[in-house]
């Protein structure tokens, strides 16, 4: 019998919990693929030196339980400060946070901004599906204006938050936004984030066909991915466009890529001062 070739990602996943609970067409699988590809291309044979931290929401389940690695799955929105505590006492570990737009940009936004301000050496991957998926389709701070959700039956009346831009302002070292359509770019961005000394934030605009797609008239993942493809605008092009031209666009690319002393480096300097 011919042995079928095993998918490259399988060895990094906990097979006892597969198949996953992600809905059909969910973008989380693409995020997992891109992440694990990036990990392999960066030369990691396994995830032994990684600890994943996540909060509450669909994408928080990416590492817990699916990654064959250590993971801490915590309270809603609090993954980043938990990651901070862990990283400060175990700086040799690669600490990666996965979370959704609700987890990271609503209830946990404060922590995101302060982690960026501190230039904490963790990677935060925010899977932005523009909705609260796990709880059944309530509006998120990333839901575009006017979308009908279970908590905004007549349409949202608030503007969506540009989380990546905000994270740049807060002081992150590396910020990039891609969609689940841009798998190669996303993988490359994850590789850069993993190499980056400093706070890295990746926003992955992702599809949620059953909970969000349905509400905007796109019930299949393909439809949404086509929408991502056609409405994505590269950052350098977007810079020359007017705000009103960008209303329905997804601006993709690297928003910032800088090097500056990290939280741990700055803490070490203080430590030296204290002990001398």
């Amino acid at each position, binding site marked *: 019998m011919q042995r079928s070739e095993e998918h490259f990602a399988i060895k990094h996943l906990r097979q006892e*919990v597969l198949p996953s609970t992600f809905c059909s067409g969910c973008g989380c699988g693409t995020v997992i693929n891109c992440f694990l590809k990036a990990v392999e291309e960066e030369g990691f044979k396994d995830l032994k030196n990684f600890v994943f931290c996540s909060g509450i929401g669909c994408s928080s389940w990416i590492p817990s339980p699916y990654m064959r690695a*250590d*993971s801490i799955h*915590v*309270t809603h929105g609090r993954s980043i400060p938990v990651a*901070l505590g862990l990283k*400060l006492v*175990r700086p040799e570990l690669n600490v990666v946070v996965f979370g959704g737009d609700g987890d990271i940009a609503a209830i946990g936004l404060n922590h995101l901004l*302060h982690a960026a301000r501190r230039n904490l050496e963790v990677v935060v991957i925010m899977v932005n599906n523009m909705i609260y998926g796990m709880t059944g389709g309530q509006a998120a701070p990333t839901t575009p204006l006017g979308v009908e959700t279970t908590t905004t039956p007549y349409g949202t009346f608030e503007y969506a938050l540009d989380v990546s831009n905000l994270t740049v302002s807060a002081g992150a070292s590396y910020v990039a936004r891609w969609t689940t359509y841009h798998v190669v770019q996303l993988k490359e961005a994850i590789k850069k984030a993993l190499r980056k000394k400093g706070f890295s934030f990746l926003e992955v605009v992702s599809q949620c066909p059953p909970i969000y797609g349905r509400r905007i008239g796109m019930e299949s993942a393909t439809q949404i991915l086509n929408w991502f493809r056609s409405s994505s605008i590269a950052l350098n092009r977007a810079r020359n466009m007017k705000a009103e031209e960008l209303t329905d666009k997804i601006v993709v690319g690297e928003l910032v890529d800088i090097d500056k002393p990290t939280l741990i480096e700055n803490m070490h300097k203080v430590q030296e001062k204290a002990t001398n």
Partner: protein
Amino acid sequence: MHAPVLEPGTYFWQGNIACAEGAIAAGCRFYAGYPITPSSEIFEHLSSRLPKVGGICIQMEDEIASLAAVVGASWGGTKALTATSGPGFSLMQENIGLACMTETPCVIVDVQRVGPSTGQATKCAQGDVMQARWGTHGDHEIIALGPNSVQEMFDLTVKAFNLSESYRNPVIVLADEVVAHMRERVVIPRSLEIIEREETYSPPFFSTSDSYVRAMPPLGRGLNVLVTGSTHDARGLRATADPEIHRKLAEGIFGKIHKDAHILSDVEQYRVGDCEVGVVSYGCTSRSVYTAIQMAEESGMSVGHVRLRTIWPFPAEAVQRLSEGAGRILVPEMNLKQVYFEVMRAVEGKAHVVGLNKVGGGAMIYPEEILRKLTKMTERD
């Protein structure tokens, strides 16, 4: 400024400083906090002391993040502390639940002040007793210790760390503004019993009603540890729809402490079984009780006293013993009755329980007030 390693001997400290030094002596090397009166001196002192002993001290964006960082640091293998007061303690409740559910050793100091809400920031109260027990949602068990002196701010902080390691549970040092801000002599003994983190390399990593797991798996060693605040099995695997797994887990994290309530019971007892009236007190209020008892004895009364060092789990047996001798028990508290109801429950109707409650402005319960009440209670015969 103190030497990196504290010499045994006698010191004259503020309660909050004794608490901070107790944490260092217990092996705490991580503090994350948010400034709040009347606990800030703990943070300030540790910000100067921890870097000297190779520790980390960081100011977080709020108390939610403070306890979250403490949980992260503890899972990283470091003994960790945060300190706060009522408003911050309220914010910490969600992650106290997380620490209970994930069996994360950590210590939370709550220097009680007048509440609810912002209340009176600089004034003493004892209004967080029930919040310490039930502030976070769901079934859980908690350990809370109530110091009544600067010495005990040191001793009970050390003990809190030891208990948090022994039971893999958050432990609360339920201090109050008076104990935290008064200055007294503290003796640092030559040797301290310190319980260190115990590690395990194979599952079970978490307790169930069938097994209590004290040792923790180290992270970053390829053990594939799953830590989750959701219902999980002994391996750590989430099981959000299995009633049996949840029952085992809930009974496990509750039972590991509950079954040891008699061991955890730490009380100071005076004339238990040889008194006409008893007093149950804790924290700064007990200092007035000492004086009141002296005054009462001078006028011929015999007063028994159970002073709670352990507040949770409630030392019911000690209170019962007091009630067996004394038909009447006075519970003075700087709140509108909290421990009072626990005493009622413990005595099972066998003694008449009287409250002496005072709130607001930080005014302590004075010895004379206690004496007056005791006199009235004994006059009824």
